């Protein structure tokens, strides 16, 4: 097998030995290094420097070229030379109208895609007037109860022209149904809609913990979203398989990718079981990863994720189309890395994380606001975050060469180490009984909690420096900051529209459709999307649908591990 380097390894070994004996030793005698051993944030040992010896065993085909299997160097052959990544700042607060205003502001500032954050009741399937929603309506995201809210959210925005991402999981199919119903009412062509719904329920049980029903019916709903979109919305990503939340819940970067791959393969298996050809749906599977602080490790992580996915799709699922094998991902900088002390430093953290995402070949990017350790971001914080991406794109020239770090001894070595470790973990998951069994046993959750705990201890003893928190601390710092205000009229405004919808709809029709929904839900061969679209179009609330299905499926409760 041909490999990257043609240099004579023996000569290199000798050169390296001489260098260590002479130059390195001379310096070490004058001054020792900062540490005895260096590690990446994820715990991979890092050598003093890397040479061709560290890449000599990597098959050159594993590195390949951009847009070519196994896509290590990028999913497309021209990447940012044709079009920059989509600059997609997430937004959501208050009612549909409130968020619609923020959307229009971001578009006016040069944002190229929309991304929607929903409030906790919407994410968890409660109507805004449910007791569990008290205090949460429109606070962390936009409140959506009915199709009328969706109409307000996208008022004046052409859904055929801009791609829209929706960050929502256990209730994703209802939001997707509302999106479809809205587009149909406007006379849009479903095959022209582009965007993404997160709908990655497995990582909810593992990390983000937004779930309603037990795992099995929840995965069936995801399966239905994927098959429905494959047949009706050819440009739409019906799932965004996410490592981001696994990382934010505390995991290592390695586990972020490995666990995401375990989840992704589970979805593919479920859809293939319906008889759908893998190449019919796999091209629209999209991913979402975090951009963490360890610059080179993150780039290696993204490159390894692409290579691993390509190999899984080809070798395990027999995909034939290149589109089924190329991993496309959205990236968000790491919210958990943001600090309250000296909060403006968050701009620098975010910049470096964003640069890693770009050098790692992300398809779209959200950069966090500097004030997000306090509250959801202000308009000003979002503007600076967006400008951060625009500076990287327009002023640094980093987007002109594809995978500029490809071929780096260090990067290629770390990429391959990542690949090998990811496959080892996937084998372990299989041996131990599969993803769903291990979720039920808390196996993933335990790994995440362990790394989170280690991280907390490392921050405490300064092993993991965090500027402003355990290093260069400013005593008695007073934050000079204006945060995003919560409008106390939000819940009333929202509930009033909800009540109007309830008062003006045909309740007999809703009742009839809800009974049909139960019949569809009982029959796993049927797809839950069409009946849900009918329901939301008739004015059913999210709570109507969720509660009806709860009578059939019940509620999931986890047995927490720590």
């Amino acid at each position, binding site marked *: 097998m041909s490999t990257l380097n043609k240099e004579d390894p023996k000569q290199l070994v000798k050169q390296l030995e001489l260098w260590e004996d002479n130059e390195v030793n001379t310096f070490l005698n004058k001054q020792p290094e900062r540490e005895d051993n260096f590690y990446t944030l994820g715990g991979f040992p890092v050598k003093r420097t890397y040479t061709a010896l560290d890449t000599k065993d990597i098959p050159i085909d594993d590195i390949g070229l951009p847009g070519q299997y196994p896509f290590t160097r990028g999913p497309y052959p021209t990447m940012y030379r044709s079009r920059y990544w989509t600059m997609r700042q997430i937004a959501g607060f208050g009612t549909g109208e409130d968020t619609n205003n923020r959307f229009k502001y971001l578009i006016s500032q040069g944002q190229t895609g929309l991304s929607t954050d929903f409030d906790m009741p919407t994410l968890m399937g409660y109507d805004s007037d449910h007791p569990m929603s008290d205090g949460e309506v429109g606070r962390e995201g936009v409140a959506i109860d009915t199709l009328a809210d969706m109409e307000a959210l996208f008022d004046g925005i052409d859904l055929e022209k801009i791609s829209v991402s929706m960050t929502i999981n256990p209730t994703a199919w209802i939001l997707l149904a509302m999106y479809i119903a809205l587009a149909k009412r406007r006379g849009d062509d479903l095959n022209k809609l582009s965007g993404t719904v997160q709908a990655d329920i497995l990582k909810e049980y593992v990390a983000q913990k937004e779930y309603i029903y037990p795992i099995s019916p929840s995965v069936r709903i995801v399966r239905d979203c994927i098959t429905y979109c494959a047949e009706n919305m050819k440009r739409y990503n019906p799932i965004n398989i996410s490592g981001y939340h696994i990382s934010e*819940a505390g995991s290592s970067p390695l586990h972020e990718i490995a666990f995401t791959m375990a989840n992704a393969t589970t979805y593919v298996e479920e859809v293939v079981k319906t008889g759908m050809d893998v190449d019919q749906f796999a091209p629209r599977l999209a991913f979402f990863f975090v951009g963490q602080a360890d610059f080179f490790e993150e780039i290696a992580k993204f490159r390894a994720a692409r290579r691993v996915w390509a190999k899984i799709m080809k070798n395990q699922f027999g995909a034939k189309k290149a589109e089924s094998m190329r991993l496309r991902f959205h990236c968000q900088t790491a919210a958990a890395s943001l600090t*309250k002390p000296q909060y403006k430093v968050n701009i620098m953290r975010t910049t470096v994380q964003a640069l890693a995402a770009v050098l790692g070949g992300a398809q779209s990017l959200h950069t966090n606001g500097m004030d997000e350790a306090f509250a959801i971001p202000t308009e000003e914080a979002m503007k600076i975050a967006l400008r951060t991406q625009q500076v990287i794109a327009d002023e640094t020239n980093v987007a002109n060469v594809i995978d500029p770090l490809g071929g780096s001894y260090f990067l290629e070595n770390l990429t391959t180490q990542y690949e090998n470790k990811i496959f080892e973990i996937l084998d372990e998951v299989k041996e131990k009984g599969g993803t769903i069994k291990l979720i039920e046993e808390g196996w993933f959750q335990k790994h995440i909690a362990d790394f*989170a705990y280690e991280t907390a201890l490392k921050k405490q003893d300064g092993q993991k420096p965090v500027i402003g928190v355990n290093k260069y601390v400013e005593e008695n710092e007073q934050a000079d900051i204006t945060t995003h205000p919560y409008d106390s009229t939000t819940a009333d405004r929202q509930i009033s529209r909800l009540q109007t919808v309830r008062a003006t709809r045909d309740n007999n029709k809703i009742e009839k459709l809800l009974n049909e929904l139960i019949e569809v839900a009982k029959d796993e061969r049927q797809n839950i999307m069409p009946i849900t679209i009918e329901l939301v179009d008739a004015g059913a609330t999210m709570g109507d649908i969720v509660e009806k299905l709860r009578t059939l499926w019940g509620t999931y409760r986890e047995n927490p591990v720590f």
Partner: protein
Amino acid sequence: MGLPIRVLLAKVGLDGHDRGVKVVARTLRDAGMDVIYTGLHRTPEEVVNAAVQEDVDILGISLLSGAHMTICPKIMQLLEDKDAADTIVVVGGVVPDEDVTPLKEMGVKELLLQDTPPKEIVARLEKLVEERGPR
């Protein structure tokens, strides 16, 4: 040596952020305290009932959803109704600075916000129990 400090850690409402509460649970357990964690998505009633039944010294509420000014008053009121107002209530998570004083005024004894080192959490809780004295 006295009995170990008993702590109930709770997630209330719809907020699923449990990274912090699990780190705290493990920290307190490693420090020799008796730790009970309610798991996610509990109501104020469930949490207060559990605190009373388990006869805990400390009730720790973890909130990162922004709903603390709605949820905390309910919990304080329920504790009083159940004759358990001597339970030491601490809040952890994301709380804006301007809400710290109102929370303390309603009886929350301590706020453990982002990046509070584990050792400091243990020390502050031990001090609160010491200040309260034996029950």
